[in-house]
């Protein structure tokens, strides 16, 4: 299995109210930070690791100097063994790029762009702390198309403060008109002490969020719902990079707070630019095997529409969980055939309860 590379660019114009990725708005350490990523990559030189996906995420990578991005990709090609059709995604935010920037990305090999819309309702965007309006998103989107990007993802969210079926419908209609290749639709999930809770907004309850989720599924029925929160235009490949996360394929993360799964080990860098630039790379790797690996396999595979391959499940899993699986099937939460167990769209949305109800201990 070919590996994916992830580069974390932890710089943003401003942090959004809901975000809990590692990011800062001060870009003064940018140069040193990129240099540190170059150094981190050096550790893999000479290993001839085959790679077929790259994801430059953040933060907002488009806030960083585009020539740094180009240099980073050049170095990556130099060290890793890139497939000719390698998917190279960059995350952009509306209003943070122009033609010149896009040209540099394109020349560096970027062939997929992921951009955050979140909502087509400006008051919702404001509440979320986004720096753009729906119209500004559209302008940026059209610029991407004009510059020849043919594989674009738009992020959206539901379950937003003060949202309703009507506001969501507006966002979904807006998205459908864009006709983008891929859509990520996330349910807004906040930490208990999120500042958004202090604002007196009304959040839909669980049943309300489920209704919104149903509308998302319904209105995006032209898309393949291949993972809980991800949709790809029918006939188009899912995001190759993100799919590695769900299928336990290898990926190597570079930059502060970046996570890796490589040679059956999980490790991650400290969530601090200073520490990272100072040379503190991945913490003690954790080897994943046996019961732990099985639990991961189940937890991750069931997030996708491919489900888990029956052959990956030990016999003991069946004896312990058969009753449960059958009742889930009867209640429309799960499908099962000779090859795999898969969750339905309804099942996706209660997947935590389903997964945690399985007994996955290996005797």
């Amino acid at each position, binding site marked *: 299995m070919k590996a994916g590379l992830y580069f974390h660019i932890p710089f943003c114009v401003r942090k959004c109210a809901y975000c809990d990725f590692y990011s800062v708005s001060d870009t003064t350490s940018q140069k040193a930070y990129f240099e540190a990523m170059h150094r981190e990559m050096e550790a893999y030189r000479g290993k001839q690791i085959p790679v077929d996906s790259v994801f430059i995420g953040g933060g907002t990578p488009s806030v960083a100097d585009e020539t740094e991005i180009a240099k980073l990709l050049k170095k990556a090609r130099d060290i890793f063994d890139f497939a000719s059709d390698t998917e190279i995604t960059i995350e952009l935010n509306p209003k943070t790029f122009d033609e010149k920037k896009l040209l540099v990305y394109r020349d560096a090999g970027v062939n997929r762009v992921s951009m955050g819309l979140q909502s087509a309702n400006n008051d919702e965007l404001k509440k979320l702390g986004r720096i753009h309006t729906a119209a500004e998103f559209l302008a940026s989107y059209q610029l991407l198309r004009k510059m020849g990007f043919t594989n674009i993802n738009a992020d959206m969210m539901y379950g937003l403060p003060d949202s309703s079926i009507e506001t969501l419908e507006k966002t979904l209609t807006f998205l459908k008109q864009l006709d983008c290749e891929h859509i990520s639709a996330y*349910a807004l999930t906040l930490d208990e002490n999120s500042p958004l809770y202090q604002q007196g907004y009304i959040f839909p309850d669980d049943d309300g969020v*489920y209704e919104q*989720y149903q509308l998302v599924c319904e209105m995006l029925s032209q898309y393949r719902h291949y993972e809980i929160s991800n949709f790809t235009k029918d006939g188009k490949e899912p995001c190759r990079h993100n799919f590695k996360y769900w299928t336990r394929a290898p990926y190597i993360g570079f930059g502060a707070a*970046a996570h890796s799964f490589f040679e059956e080990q999980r490790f991650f860098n400290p969530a601090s630019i200073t520490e990272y630039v100072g040379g503190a790379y991945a913490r003690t790797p954790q080897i994943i095997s046996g019961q732990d690996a099985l639990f991961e396999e189940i937890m991750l595979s069931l997030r996708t529409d491919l489900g888990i391959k029956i052959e990956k499940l030990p016999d003991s899993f069946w004896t312990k969980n058969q009753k449960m699986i059958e009742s889930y099937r009867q209640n429309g939460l799960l499908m099962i055939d000779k090859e795999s167990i898969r969750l339905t769209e309804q099942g996706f*949305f*209660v997947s*935590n*309860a389903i997964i*945690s109800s399985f007994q996955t201990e290996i005797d």
Partner: protein
Amino acid sequence: MSERQNHIRNFSIIAHIDHGKSTLADRLLEKTGVVSAREMEEQLLDNMELEKERGITIKARAVRLVYRAKNGEEYIYNLIDTPGHVDFNYEVSRSLKACEGAILIVDAAQGIEAQTLANAYLAVDSDLEILPVINKIDLPSARPDVVKQEIEDIIGIPADEAPLISAKNGTNIEDVLEAIAKNIPAPSGDENAPLKALIFDSYYDAYKGVIIYIRVMDGKITKDTTMKMMSNGKEFEVVEVGYLNALGMTPCQELCAGEVGYVTASIKTLRDTAVGDTVTDKANPATEPLPGYKAVQPMVFCGLYPVDGARYDDLKDALLKLQLNDAALIFEPETSIALGFGFRCGFLGLLHLEIIQERLEREFNLDLITTAPSVIYKITKTDGTKMDLDNPTNLPNPSEIASMEEPFVSATIMTPTDYVGNIMELCQERRGVFIDMKYLDETRVSIHYDMPLNEIIYDFFDDLKSRTKGYASLDYELSDYRESKLVKLDILLNGEIVDALSFIVHTDKAYARGRRIAEKLKEVIPRQLFEIPIQAAIGTKVIARETVKAMRKDVLAKCYGGDITRKKKLLEKQKEGKKRMRQFGTVEVPQEAFMSVLKL
């Protein structure tokens, strides 16, 4: 009477709950210098954590004080503390058997309450000298003269010279200490007669084995004695005898007739030292044991089950340990279809049940599920055979039942006259039968009802307190069994009976109870992957129905990038949480759900 005995006084303090028993005990300890002010902490004798938290005394306890009286003589005072709650009357009568006298505390503001009277009668029955003491004279509402008159009129003992004290402020404590020497009789008993000592308490110590508390009636016991338990003939070499101090134990050479102290004898088996048994000397045994205690009658029964079935043996050991110094606790193994292996336990009342449950959970680190409490019903079957039923699950098919009887108690409620209406309303609601009402004085009455015990064991006391702003007091004792129209109410989850939630109820109450329980369960059972119907049924007839809606959302629909570890931790935590749930078919019921329906 020997010179030694002449300077010993053995006494208890009895009172209605909250009249200041433990506080007076603390003051007596302080004034006699047994504990220094530095060592003094409140409620010193109540050394069970739970007792301090709830501000009540659960277990009897004993302590030896030395008092130099105004006449220049030095006296040994053995104070045996007693609990005040109605559930623990049994403990009180146990303590009294070891004494010659009792200090009866009456609150100067509240006057005589139901348990003041009940405890006073217990003392009278044991032929004890009663020394009335009026406490809380520092309160602005104190009316000591009225209370003195109450004591004389209601209990019928002279109260003219009763010390007027404030245990809280330490006022006139000397008067009490003097009165003890003056009024409470010295013990009698022949030091040279064969040994007869009463076991009035015992507990298990990890290092010394069982430690028994005794009152020597005749003869003496030394560390060379081979003692013999008169009930079962078991013999033990005494290892140590000694006195009980407030802060520990002091070994001594011997305990003689009239004295109170402890004995250790490397006793390993908890069951060998029944409280109430008589200890004698193997070498020179007594012929007749002391009159034992009246066998204690548990009145409330329920099943106790470990949440984790693998801890059944731990639960058994814990019950055995608690039973050692709580003769009122009885238990035997039982099985439940819903809960697996556990024990059917008998308690004095609901407070006793709660306390045992809390002690098991705290002191033995057990997670427990408690089934609905029940009383003992007497059933006559159509074939003429009779049975006692303490577990609703065992109720025979209704077609085989000719008649059922339920236990009634004779309940005495004392209250200011303002609340008579409220109380009568409450007792009627609880199927009480009015007997009479007596005026204690112009403002207070004593109301007497016969009540079904199963109406009292739930929340009667709480309800009584809330309807009388806390002023009414209650005492009750089992009176008789009466025929009654009773049915078994079953609770079904997802169509299946959960036997642990079944209970017996009067026909007239079944609908309301069934509805309340179904509603409560709907609140406490979390939403799950499927809709869960909750039904209350009598036989096949469903009388109440609620539904827990299916869970719709339980998902990590957020982007954590490649951070799988975080996702995994969240799910593992969720998985762990399920262990505190009990699985019934596909339904998961949290442990709290069982407790929450007990009090409905």
